[in-house]
């Protein structure tokens, strides 16, 4: 039986991957994908604990996370398209109005 720590470690690796992707990568699409990776890292965590604690609550939470991830992807892509049309930008660092 695979120990719980293995799942937690996998989840942590995936989460850090996603986090670094969000922080470092410039392309919008990639940033969005990194966010999805982070969400799924959380999902693995939830399902693993659900199994080991024999409670359905974690799996239910994971289902909610998936649903929200779908919505987030839709909204995120929509924003990206609007930004692309308006400013012809595909990179995060081209959007820097959020300063003094």
């Amino acid at each position, binding site marked *: 039986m695979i120990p719980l720590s293995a799942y937690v470690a996998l989840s942590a690796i995936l989460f850090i991957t996603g986090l670094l992707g969000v*922080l470092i990568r410039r392309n919008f699409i990639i940033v969005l994908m990194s966010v999805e990776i982070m969400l799924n890292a959380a999902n693995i965590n939830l399902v693993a604990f659900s199994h080991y604690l024999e409670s359905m609550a974690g799996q239910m939470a994971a289902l909610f996370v998936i649903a929200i991830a779908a919505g987030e992807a839709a909204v995120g892509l929509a924003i990206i398209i609007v930004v692309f049309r308006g400013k012809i930008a595909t990179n995060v660092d081209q959007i*820097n109005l959020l300063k003094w």
Partner: protein
Amino acid sequence: MSDFIVILIPVFPLLAVLINGLLGHRYSPELAGKIALSSVGLSFLCALTVFTSTVSSGTAREVIAYSWFFGGDLHVNLGFLIDPLTGIMLMVVTGVGFLIHVYSVGYMHGEEGFTRFFVYMNLFMVSMLLLVMGNNFLVLFIGWEGVGLCSYLLIGYYFSKVSAAKAATKAFVVNRIGDAGFLLAIFLVFVNFKTLDYTKVLANVGQLSTEMATAIALCLLVGAVGKSAQLPLYIWLPDAMEGPTPVSALIHAATMVTAGVYMVVRTHVLFDMAPIAMGTVAVIGGATALFAATIGLVQTDIKRVLAYSTVSQLGYMFLACGVGAYVAAIFHLVTHAFFKALLFLSAGSVIHALGGEQDLRKMGGLAKKIPITYKVFLIGTLAIAGIPPLAGFWSKDEIMAHAFVNHHYGLYAMAAIGAFLTSFYMFRLTYLTFFGTSRVEPEVEHHIHESPSKMTVPLMILAGLALLGGFIGVPPEHGWLHGFLAGVAIPIGVVPHEVSAGTLLGLMGVAVGIALAGWGLAHYMYSLHTKAADEWAERSPAVYRTLLNKYYVDEIYDVIFVESFKKIGRAWDWFDQNVIDRVVRGIGHGADSSGAGITWTEKHVIYAGLNVVGYANHLLAWSWRKLQTGLVNHYAAVIVIGLFILVHFVLVWLTGKSVL
């Protein structure tokens, strides 16, 4: 349900005030008159319902409209006390008030400010109803001030006339003196009883010392003397005749001026405890009755004769209160409301017929030309003079009998002489107005006409009341009125004298004799031997001139009070201008120059300092501003780092050891 009707009584006129007062300019005066009239009519019907239920039950009840205000020990309701006394007053106020409203529609027809007139009249009705219906001293006081205000407004109805404006001011100022006394009485009542409700106050009167009861009663008396025009504050009432005649009838004869009598009877338990106050009431009443009657003898203005007659009759009511004959006082109040309203309104009808002429010397011989007015006026005269079986005879005789059987022979003599003078001057008025040769000016002569039915019908109804109204108090001491008022107006701790029927009949005979003697003398002087009046005046010019000038009381008051107050006022004016204003101006100049200095300091010192601070900030901020790149991932990185640090601290806090 019936509580609701009680509250409706003052609400109807109040609604009419609001409607006519706020919207009156948008529609015709006729409609405004109809609204005013119907509101008083509805109020009368409600009052009639309440009155009949009071008659059948015979008990008092309180209706609380709402809790007005409270704080500390003071809790005041806007509440109404419905007992037999209030019932009688309600009938007089709304009944006579309604008749006078009907009359006014005819009398005031075509006058400028017709709507305004009815707004004031209805406001008066509201205030008067609050006055007689209130269940505590404060509601009474509100009504008291309200009727005073309306009196002021209506005396000054023709405000462009200087004399009217002055008379209104005089009435208001003189009433202030009385109101101050009344207010003091209310304060004293509150201090002693911690409540202002009649029922609670009058039930606990026993705990007062005689001195305190006397003080309260005397303060109340000051208020009553002001409002009811007794010596020495009667001077405003004759001048109040500047107002339109229906106003004189309603406010200055039938209702408002009787408020003082009502108040004394309402609080009679206090007076019963204070023999000194009672004596004062009786002496003031008797003296006023006689004093005003003597002035009435020689006046030449038809309304002023009636005004002095009102003062005199109010004196009788006070006299009755003072000898403990409260029922007789209320009885006379009721009959007086009937016949004096009748006299004033028919005098108004005479004035109306003569196109505004009020001088008796320019009247005469009108009996044939305005027969209805003549007949009702004659009924009024017979009633006030005390000719049986008209209303005034029963009530006045009862007052005089009470004075006599309680051994107040001096007061009885005053009342008897007053009654003789009353009879004389009233028949003098009748003879000068309606009999003899006409002294009317020729151009007025053509236009003499009987008044319209709107005016004559109320006159006839009032004449009926003056004829028969006395029978509510017949037989004397045991009439319907006496039984009805037994619970509220019988003096405490006084054993009624058992008087033989013979004495009472004898007193009645004397009263009739006095009345007839007055009539006879008037008949001799103004009908048989018309030169007699002038001859008497020539024979003792000093007396005649003194009476004609009303004992120079106005002049004496002018010298003693008005002028000295004016002097004090001028002195204060000087003090104000030369001392206080100078100090104020000095402070102003000081403030002005110091203000200029402060402005300079602010501009050149404070602002400069602030600017230095500002620029320093700016420089400092420039370096920190660089931190904000505007790039989302930089911010995200900061958030993540911050989150790590925060989680680390939380872990350290929870576990006590560092993870890193």
